[in-house]
């Protein structure tokens, strides 16, 4: 549990970060360090140099802007969990990450850039239709969350790019997050984020994503389709949640704690839980 030798550089601005990144090929960018430091200590990573972006002020904070709120990449989970102007599905998911120490150090940007398949925030951002803003030496670009997470620990980030912020729509309706957590890590064994709108007593919009089941956060299109135009009650929600097996197909992964069969079997429970809570918040 002793990391290999590395050089440490602190970037005080984005431009400084980019020049350090260019200067030190193979260096790893560190913010909260919650995924990187364990892998250094296990000597699974040996990047030679770390570039600390943790003090770059322009990447911090939460700013409301009309129907969208921007979360700086370096904002901690604890600050997101306590925020008032974000969808409830996001704040409750942030509040269930790890433990207080993890939430006080871990950052939203680091979390999604790492793209652990069992991580909560990729699922939530996918369901909420968030936009991930990336910045690199060549400028900024934006990617829909749904397209950002591309595989197991894989994202649309290009070499030399950083996550700068996440734009979260705040007019999407009621939202919620539900998960079964691993008792050690608190990562999701199965996690589901849902957002619904109800007009004239029926569901007019639904967006659902699940995590922990496949290589990356998965949009649950079949579940969504089954909700549209329906009144949201126990029966319709259960019927829609059952559609998650369509969305998952044969891609469900198992591990030491939960087999693929077990995960597939309990997935509808958490889809239904998230939908029920989201519906109750849809006003």
């Amino acid at each position: 549990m002793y990391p290999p030798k590395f050089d440490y550089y602190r970037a005080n601005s984005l431009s400084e970060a980019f020049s350090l990144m260019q200067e030190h090929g193979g260096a790893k960018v560190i913010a909260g360090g919650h995924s990187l430091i364990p892998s250094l200590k296990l000597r699974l990573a040996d990047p030679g140099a770390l570039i600390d972006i943790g003090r770059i002020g322009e990447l911090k904070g939460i700013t409301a802007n009309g129907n969208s709120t921007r979360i700086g990449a370096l904002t901690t989970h604890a600050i997101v969990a306590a925020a008032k102007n974000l969808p409830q599905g996001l704040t409750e998911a942030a509040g269930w990450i790890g433990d207080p120490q993890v939430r006080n150090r871990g950052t939203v940007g680091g979390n999604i850039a790492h793209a652990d398949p069992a991580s909560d925030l990729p699922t939530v951002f996918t369901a909420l239709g968030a936009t991930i803003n990336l910045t690199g030496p060549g400028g900024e670009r934006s990617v829909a969350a749904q397209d950002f997470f591309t595989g197991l620990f894989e994202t649309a980030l290009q070499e030399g790019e950083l996550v700068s912020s996440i734009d979260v729509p705040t007019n999407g309706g009621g939202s919620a997050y539900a998960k079964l957590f691993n008792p050690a890590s608190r990562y999701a064994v199965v996690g589901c984020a849902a957002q619904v709108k109800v007009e004239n007593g029926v569901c007019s919009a639904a967006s659902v994503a699940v995590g922990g089941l496949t290589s990356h956060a998965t949009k649950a299109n079949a579940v969504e389709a089954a909700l549209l135009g329906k009144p949201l009650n126990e029966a319709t929600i259960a019927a829609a949640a059952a559609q998650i097996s369509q969305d998952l197909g044969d891609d469900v992964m198992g591990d030491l704690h939960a087999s693929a069969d077990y995960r597939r079997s309990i997935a509808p429970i958490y889809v239904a839980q998230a939908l029920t809570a989201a519906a109750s918040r849809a006003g």
Partner: protein
Amino acid sequence: MTTRYFGQPIKRNEDPRLLTGQALFTDDVHLPNMLHVAFLRSDYAHAHIRSINVSAAQAIPGVVAIYTADDLGDYWRPGPLLVPPPPVKDLIFNPRMQVPLAKNKVRHVGEPIVVIVAESRYIAEDAAQQIFVDFEPLPAVVDIEKALAPDAPVIHPDLAHNLNAHVIQRKGDYAAIRDQAAVLIKRRFLYDRGTAAAMENRGIVADWDAKNEQLTMWDTTQAPIPIRNGIAAMLGLSERQVRVVAPFIGGGFGPKIMMFYPEEVLLPWISMRLNRPVKWIEDRSENFYATTQERGQVHEAEIALTRDGRVLGIHDLFLHDAGAYAPYGLTVALNSQCTLLGQYDVPHYYSEFKAVFTNKPIVTPYRGAGRQHGVFVMERLLDIAAKELGIDRVEIRRRNLIPPEKFPYNNEIIYQDFAPLIYDSGNYAPALDKALALIDYTNFIQTEQPRLRAEGKLVGLGLVTYVEGTGIGPYEGAKVTIETSGRVSVATGIGTQGQGHYTVFAQVVAEQLGVNVENVRLVTGDTAEFYWGAGTFASRGAVVAGNAIHAAAVKVRQKILKRASEDLEAAEEDLELVDGTVRVKGSPSTAIKLGELAARLNPLRGAVKPGAEPGLEATDYFGPERGATASGVHAMIVEVDPETMQVEIKKYIAVHDCGVVINPMILEGQIQGGVAQGIGNAFYEQLIFDENGQLLNASFMDYLLPTADTVPRVEMDHVETRSPLNPLGIKGAGEAGAIPVGPLFAQAVEDALIGYNIEILEIPLSPNRLFELVLEPQQGS
């Protein structure tokens, strides 16, 4: 009115030091010029070592020395056999002990091969990565049921097979009564491996002082005196030249009594060779491989009963996983064999086990030390029998309890201390009754459970009994001194790992000497302070060291009374010891402070009477003729989520009998902690090895421990049945909490899942495993 100290829930003397971070742990020892040690450990469970190349590592700046097995010369030798086999007829025993560094062959993942000494641990770890070992991998023995197959790879080539031991013990004649049984029930039971996961890993600092020719070793051991004796012998030093200090230790649980760990053998040798202090602190990754583990057994057991539920006999064949080496003899398997019969009056017992070598880390006792396996088999057999016979599970237990008039009760087999397994005392029915009251058994079964089930809630109750053999010999000793300040110092040889020794031993002394508990200062685990002893294990600290301290305190009390009788001109029986003074009963002003009395007995000038001993000090020893048997009943109520198979413990109660209680608060802490470990063992913790002997979950990200939010507060009650085997009448309590939780969990969950018709015959469980068990009958497998 004299104050009572013994039996009171007195706050712990050691807590201010621990809670303010002032207590010394091994890693707190920082010495000038100290070097740091890392180990290159095997990545393979089973392989030949063709060659080792350390040249690149040696070239790294800051690397001071690198040693392989060949560099150790004559110092390289297998460790001693700690516990010889018991005197059981026709016993087969093939001891094979761990070595300081693997030579030619590795036998488990994590076995040390090379030791690196450097100016910092970081450099030492970097160097370890630059050492190249050419391995020739061999097929590994992982599954204990395949270890004895004719084609199994052989782990110790000087044996033709992997048999560590074969032991048969008999009581009565099971074969003869089998035909008379109305019911025979036979099942196969599995109990898998876990790790103790002490909060503090192991660690050693060794410091050779060449000018004084004195070796000091700080070691997270439960047995500093045997470590001192062994290290002195290995290094060719006098025992007086070696001081071993076991400072505060963050949890022992048994693995820290294993000896000698390779690191314990190597660090003093390195310090002497380099003439510098050296430190090694085990990290958590190492702990998963390099610290001993426990629990792997497979039982094929049969119970024979009469129609009315009387147990006629038990027949049990089991395999025990010894791991790659077996330095601890047969303790764990013997405990399984000797604890299975539990609180029950069973006339016929046939128990046969084979301990087998596997390519997994070494197995030595871990809290419970094999007892849980026996309890699991017996309690599960009774549960199944109760169902088959249509008898209430409490009733079938009650019918078979050893009645109070049968104590001392002879089980007619040999226990781990090589003495006959005779329960010293017990009174089991009152504990069962108290447990039924605490869990509200009748109301739950008749009213609550049906009501909750009608609401669709899967609630179940478990109730099991157990015994715990505790307080075994050989002996411990203690020295009690009253200083001229009036403070009392006590030294004993055992180590302390959080049990509350500083308080309970002070209470034992205070009771005799009439001093405040806070005025009694205890030293444990420092061989410079007390020379003789064995160590902290087998729930024996309070029983054996406690009675030695009691005996020494009684001697000091006698010295006080004798001198005070002269000085106060009063008969000894008219004196009392109160508030740090000795005084005449009914005349509190006719008193002498104990410190003053101690000073009078240690004059600076003048003559003393011939034969006088200075001061108020005494040393005494205690060795019980055999162990004292504690007992208890645990019960719990669980709710199982029918969809996720998550289990929530709604209520947990324990009724415990460990004889006379010294400090009920500390006792309850012991039980609570044991139950937490038992819950981990039952539902969270499992070391998962693949077919190559690789451990797949060697971190706390993947090895699940029970956490504060999943462990309930245990409601407790006590029964006090004195042990006749020691003057204080006490029995041990250290392991009790952990022992019965496996079968308790199984029974309660099975009860909750009654409609699913499953039998739980394995530990540990998990939501995922319950999900599979529930699906199996549906899939017709």
